[in-house]
């Protein structure tokens, strides 16, 4: 079963994402902030990471940099989650 890690600080949003993923037949894992997200990524080595951009302390960009810095996690496909309509081009990608 494909493993997907969701990194999202908003509890209800996190719950909804996990619900949808599980109902679609994925093994979904959750992390409530960037730091925990990095640890979980190393531990469970997911097939895909969905990560919120705006989070307190370590944000989405920080998580991505952390993943890319380690060979073990550098190649995991990574999708930024933003609220609908938000333009990503304005951020430092």
């Amino acid at each position, binding site marked *: 079963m494909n493993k997907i890690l969701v990194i999202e*600080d*908003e*509890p*209800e*949003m996190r719950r*909804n*994402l996990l*619900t*949808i993923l599980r*109902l679609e037949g994925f093994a979904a894992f959750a992390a409530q902030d960037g730091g925990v997200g990095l640890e979980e990524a190393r531990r469970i080595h997911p097939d895909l990471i969905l990560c919120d951009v*705006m989070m*307190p302390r370590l944000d989405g960009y920080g998580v991505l940099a952390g993943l890319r810095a380690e060979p073990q996690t550098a190649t995991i496909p990574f999708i930024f989650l933003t*609220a*609908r*309509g*938000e333009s990503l081009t304005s951020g430092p990608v």
Partner: protein
Amino acid sequence: MQTAINRRKRVETDLRQQNAALEERVRELTAELAASEERLRTLVEHAPEAMLVLDAEALRFDNCNENALRLFGLSREQLLQLGPAEISPEIQPDGRPSPEAARGWIAQALAGRTPIFEWIHKHADGRSIPCEVRLVRLPAEGRDLVRASIIDNTEHRRRERIQQATYRISEAVHGVRDLQSLYARVHEIVIELMPARNFYIAIHDAAAGLVRFPYFVDERDPAPAPRKLSTGLTGWVIRTGKPLLVNRRTHIQKLQAGLAVLDDQTTYVENGTPAAVWLGAPLSVRGKTMGVLALQDYNNESAYGEEDKQLLTFIGEQTGLAIERKQAEEDLLKTLEREKELGRLKSDFVSLVSHEFRTPLGIIMSSAEILRDYLDSLEPAERTEHLDSIQRSTRRMADLMEEVLLLGMFEAGRMDFKPEWLDLSVLAGRIVDEVRSATGHACPVRLEISPESRHARTDERIFRHIFTNLLSNAIKYSEPGKPVHFGVQREGTQAVCRVCDQGRGIPPEDREWLFRAFHRGRNAADRPGTGLGLVLVKRCVELHGGSVDVESSLGKGTTITVRLPLFAASPSQAASTEPQENGS
């Protein structure tokens, strides 16, 4: 024999005639010489420069013209007792002692050269006279005579110095970073022109009615605090727009003789220690006096003279212009900076607001999607959970919208403040009831209003907003059942309102951000909130002319103290201004 006698007589006659002719010739020559001497004397006497003849052996002056007497301020008898060293300062600007330097130049003249050089002379009153001197040896039998022709360069030098100072001050406007550096630069320029160990700049802020001392260098006193236009010397210069040179001794003498230089209202002492001599010039722009440049010396009462006064007056004019320009430049920069800051705040705010709206919007959309697509796979409890989520998020968006609109009204200055006399205990009681029912009676709230605080004058809407927010917060961040205390006490015209909880407290590192839009304590994430509540509380308190303080201890609780001017100055005044109660 007879012929011999006749011949002798003839010879005698001839001789007499020749003698007479010779005497005539001598008379003619003498007259011619006298005329020539007279011509020479007139030439020397009316030469534009000062001329002196020096006996180089005795090193004493042998002769001089009227201009020389005028230049040195001496009588002919006095001057002809002296030599070059005695009408010069001890040292020349190149560092050589005057007697030694003078001997060198005189030796050159005696050797047949005609040296031309700059020299500092000394007037009888002690002031220096910058001069140009030309020496030439005079033909004289058995004596070493040297003629000195001296041109007074004082006026020329003065113009040069003024020109240089003007140039340097206008250059300084562009070369310095801010007004403070400009003041320091002006001081440096003044130092090169006259003694300026004690130097200050006073600026008259007419709008505030204050004189400020933005630059003050003094060996005796510290910089004075801004103060009202004084009756001292600085005040005199500001009021009259005229330069002033006074010294303590002559001021007292003239005062005793009833010949005061200053008007009766002016005291000699400007500030702290009285100076031996005080020199001040107006800083003026287009005829308006904006301040004073002042110099003082505590010991040497002749440190400054009329020439320094003229020079400082000129520097004052230039400095006034320079300050005006620098001020305009600084104002422009400040305005630009403020504009930028406002623009930044606005775009920060917009991005924060949109993020705050997106989060509940995202929850509503995803919960709705789950209910639509997976309704059959969901447990009844899960369905309820998603419906609750939608409802909560919708309310959160509505609250946020309300608060953003309110904040917008504050920003636009459109918040009204309409205070009325009312019974504070009734209003506070209603607020407590409302908050308790909105929070599902999670925590007991004890309301305590001192009797003398009951009759208060406040805008009900503003008061309600402040304490609804604070009480909701207190309950939101307390464990259910923990008591919350809401007390109001009177201190003079102030109501001291305290909202006290035994909740989780605010982390110290979040306290300075407490009143920033959308900043929430790091331990508040599990409770819904917009991050605007306290911002609005602060705005409301400010609108009410009050203040707000926060005391908090992590894990023990938080006390928020709001001080509001709710009462009249005295009970009698309260009675007279308080309208009849309508019994509500």
